[in-house]
């Protein structure tokens, strides 16, 4: 991080959030959030997963109605009941996911959702305005007519920020704008954010990258369990003190008591790379053990699993199951080699929602149920009954569409279909409890543990400390596509969090007082 803080703070409070409360069902996502943002200030919102940051952002941008509390901008209480209302009030949001259209030109992208362009675009006046917008985020070298697809990801992110500014924003919210960007691209974003702040705009910057938060932002508000813990000037904070505030009294160590007998090496991965996503990932998995790759969005954790499942054609590296080489890039090949994969996207890449529960449970083992290509009814119903038992779903529901189950039960079916199969050696799960309630979560953890006990090697990705500490025997932390470290045995939660939010030791960062050594020898520890 070579960014220097040149604050544009004015001391004049432009945005005030007062006592915001929001519940989803019985979950209290936000319980009383209050903080203020000054004009010209870059204000960070930090917190671990589930702390309530997303919900606060959604309430500020008109995507969720608060249950209580109020938001005022420029001294006036505003009612942000829709994204349009939020835009009129001067709130602009740049979301995690890019929402620009690569096939259109830069100017056309700026025009999208721009109320002032109107039906007949008054080309000349708009163009002058668009030019000014691009200049204001530092894209002076980019012509308006260039197709967006010719720009890099970082520049596209800047176009999106420019578009948000075009809405006459008084408050600009950036929700993890750099999660998928490289360092150089991130620098562009920092520079333009500073430029924007200098115009007197209030900026709320949500990020998991704590180093960048401290270097870029003026003040930091930390949330934990739905409440604001503290708001403090960034100057007085370090990465470690920030983590301390984010975690509070969090679980502190991997629980070793459970660590089961570990068997032979089942899966060995050497030098797995996905261009732009994962760099030189190596690991050896033993039967009977649960492994985790921990990393935030853009860390490459999810890409590692997808590549091992054969879903990333561009992946390179050596993958071996039981000593036999498995060609990457073909899901049928991975599956035939004994690798079962549970995607983090249950709806579009997981279950067959309109099909019966029984069909979904057996989808991955059709060949074991047929004789000469004909399905054996006896074996079919025996297997359905067995797996319904494993998933603890009432037997009479076998013929109901799987889409009629609750999210937690759907996820159990998704995991369950990979279990009790003789041909599966490795179970990969990408964020296996995303969007699953507490009860379902415990059930899925039990399924995964028993899968390991039955002799599978289990590898999952997660961003949640509690899950990592609870479930995994070995945790590999990842940051920006690189392995930071491999943890076997006792590890403090704060160390894991530091590594996934901040990476290893950064010699260029004067704020980093620790010398941990980058990329501890993952393979030695494991094989």
């Amino acid at each position: 991080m070579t960014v220097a803080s040149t604050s544009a703070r004015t001391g004049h409070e432009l945005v005030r959030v007062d006592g915001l409360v929001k519940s989803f069902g019985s979950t209290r996502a936000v319980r009383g959030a209050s903080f203020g943002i000054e004009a010209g200030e870059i204000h960070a919102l930090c917190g671990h997963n589930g702390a309530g940051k997303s919900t606060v952002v959604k309430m500020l941008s008109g995507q969720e109605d608060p249950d209580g509390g109020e938001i005022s901008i420029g001294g006036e209480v505003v009612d942000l009941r829709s994204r349009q209302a939020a835009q009129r009030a001067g709130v602009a949001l740049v979301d995690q996911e890019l929402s620009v259209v690569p096939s259109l030109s830069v100017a056309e992208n700026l025009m999208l959702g721009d109320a002032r362009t109107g039906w007949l675009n008054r080309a000349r006046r708009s163009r002058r305005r668009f030019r000014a917008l691009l200049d204001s985020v530092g894209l002076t070298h980019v012509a308006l007519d260039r197709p967006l697809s010719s720009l890099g990801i970082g520049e596209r992110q800047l176009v999106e920020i420019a578009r948000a500014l075009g809405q006459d924003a008084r408050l600009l919210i950036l929700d993890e704008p750099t999660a998928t960007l490289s360092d150089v691209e991130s620098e562009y974003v920092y520079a333009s954010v500073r430029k924007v702040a200098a115009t007197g705009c209030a900026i709320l910057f949500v990020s998991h990258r704590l180093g960048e938060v401290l270097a870029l932002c003026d003040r930091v508000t930390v949330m934990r369990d739905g409440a604001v813990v503290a708001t403090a000037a960034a100057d007085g904070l370090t990465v470690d003190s920030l983590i301390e505030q984010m975690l509070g009294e969090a679980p502190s160590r991997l629980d070793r008591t459970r660590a089961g007998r570990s068997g032979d090496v089942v899966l060995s991965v050497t030098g797995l790379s996905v261009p732009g996503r994962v760099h030189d990932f190596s690991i050896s998995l033993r039967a009977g053990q649960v492994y985790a790759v921990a990393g935030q969005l853009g860390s490459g954790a999810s890409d590692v699993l997808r590549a091992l499942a054969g879903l990333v054609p561009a992946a390179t590296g050596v993958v071996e199951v039981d000593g036999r080489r498995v060609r990457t890039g073909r899901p049928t090949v991975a599956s035939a080699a004994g690798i079962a994969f549970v995607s983090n996207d249950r709806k579009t890449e997981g279950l067959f929602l309109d099909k019966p529960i029984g069909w979904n449970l057996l989808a991955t083992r059709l060949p074991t149920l047929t004789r000469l290509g004909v399905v054996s009814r006896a074996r079919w119903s025996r297997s359905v009954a067995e797996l319904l038992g494993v998933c603890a779903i009432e037997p009479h529901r076998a013929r109901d569409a799987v889409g009629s189950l609750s999210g937690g039960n759907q996820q159990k079916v998704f995991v369950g279909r990979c279990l009790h199969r003789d041909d599966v050696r490795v179970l990969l799960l990408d964020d296996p409890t995303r969007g699953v309630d507490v009860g379902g979560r415990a059930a899925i953890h039990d399924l995964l543990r028993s899968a390991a006990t039955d002799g599978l090697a289990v590898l999952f990705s997660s961003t949640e400390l509690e899950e990592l500490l609870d479930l995994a025997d070995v945790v590999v932390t990842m940051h920006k596509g690189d392995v930071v470290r491999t943890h076997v045995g006792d590890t403090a939660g704060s160390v894991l969090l530091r590594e996934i939010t901040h990476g290893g030791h950064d010699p260029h960062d004067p704020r980093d007082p620790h010398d941990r050594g980058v990329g501890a020898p993952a393979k030695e520890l494991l094989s």
Partner: protein
Amino acid sequence: MNTLTVPASGATAPSRSRRRGDLATDAVVVVAVVAVLVVGLSTDRFVSYANLKAILTSASLVGIAALGLTLIMVGGAAVSLAISQTVAASGMVFLSAQSLGLVPALVLAVVCGAVVTGLQGAVVGFAAANPVVLTIAASFAITGVATGLTGGTSVSPSGTGYDVLNATPGGVPLCVFVLLALTAVVEWVLRRTGFGRSLYLGGENRRAARAAGLPVGRTTTVAWLGAGSLFAVTAAFTAAFNTAANVNLGGTLTFDAIAAVLAGGTPISGGRGSAVRTLAGAVLIAAVSDILLLRGYSTGVQIMVKGVIVLLVVVLVHLRSKGRAS
């Protein structure tokens, strides 16, 4: 940041309202069938052995091709727009190979249909090509090759074995028996084989099937191979009936087959449908056309009503699946 756990409520047991929605659409289906029957029964000469035979006969040639198309559509958001051309080409092969005898000619015709269609299926299955674009291109290619080889003239039979296909055992045309037999076969394959089940799964959600390690490409290719074989069966009967085959042998078969599959209630989105449904769709269209014919309506009206039937069924199927989803 996106792992905020919100219990997925509302997804549990909407079964009562779902059933109510199903009942409503079931009621519409019953009303429609009753209406067709009432109009039919009140139409002169509708209820007669001869007329029943006529309906089945006119349903059979379209029906056999539509069975093939059913395989393609169940396998996922795909449709072949090259059916007429494939039938014309296979028909030419069938007639010009008559000198080898009936069975070898039939085998050659089936191989022709299966290879031509299976190739397209492989491209759709393995390379995820857009089936509409691909089959339009294929239809021109097939016609081009066929025209080139025949010099644009009709192919005449090189033997007389084909006439067996024009037989009418028990007074019923052979193609009616073949339609019924093939419906049973296709239905069995779809319901009872591992191939059938993976076809339904891949058809409903291709990405999920891929991630589950199902052989999506292979399954799609096999489905299209089967479809091409069935197109060729229709081709043999059509060519035998016409005793000549040129590039226009298939006529409007492409759209007639699509109409039959859709009228049977198989959705265009894939993952659903059955051979029996397609048989019902083909018979429904044939019966309504027959009624209109008997009542003296013009061909124009008949064709228009066909369109209305397809539209109504598609809307109905859509409403029904929407009721299920909500």
